[in-house]
């Protein structure tokens, strides 16, 4: 799951418009529900694909 920073405050070091992953937020000990409710982040449509290994197909 990815989240976009929508407030003017940096969240986990990311600025407005930048995208965070659930893992980054969880590693920082953040309460994601509260961050959404307080207007800091919102679910992003951006999907972060894992790196493909050599020979793998899409």
């Amino acid at each position, binding site marked *: 799951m990815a989240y976009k920073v*929508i407030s003017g405050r940096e969240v986990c070091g990311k600025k407005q418009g930048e995208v965070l992953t659930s893992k980054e937020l969880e590693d920082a000990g953040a309460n994601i529900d509260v961050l959404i409710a307080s207007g800091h982040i919102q679910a992003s449509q951006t999907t972060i694909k894992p790196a493909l290994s050599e020979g793998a197909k899409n």
Partner: protein
Amino acid sequence: MARIVLTNALVTVNAVDLSDLVASITLNSSVDSVETTGFSSTGTRTRVGGLTDNSISLEFHQDYASGEVEATIYPLIGTVTAVTVKPVNSATSASNPLYSMNCLVAEWTPLNGAVGELATASVTWPVSGAITKTTS
């Protein structure tokens, strides 16, 4: 080792950088003194360290706008949340350590101030567990 004047400290609450809305930081750590005095010829008390108790005191400048102080902290009242502080908002190092902890948001003052004064909120939150000091 250089002395330091705090001008650009970092404060995050629930991973949100609120540094420019914080006017003071005090990170407290104390250890219970447990007495172990027994009969001896020295006539002195002896002690060992007991439980460690940590807390952080912060003075916020109140701001009710979306995504600012009130919106960030009010929903956290009564919960344990991640807090980090650092002397200078730059790379973590031995001379600029990052202190990370989980604090119980045990108090909050949504409105505080007298006529003509800046609205502020001074809080002391107990730390749940240990403080982690990172130097790299």
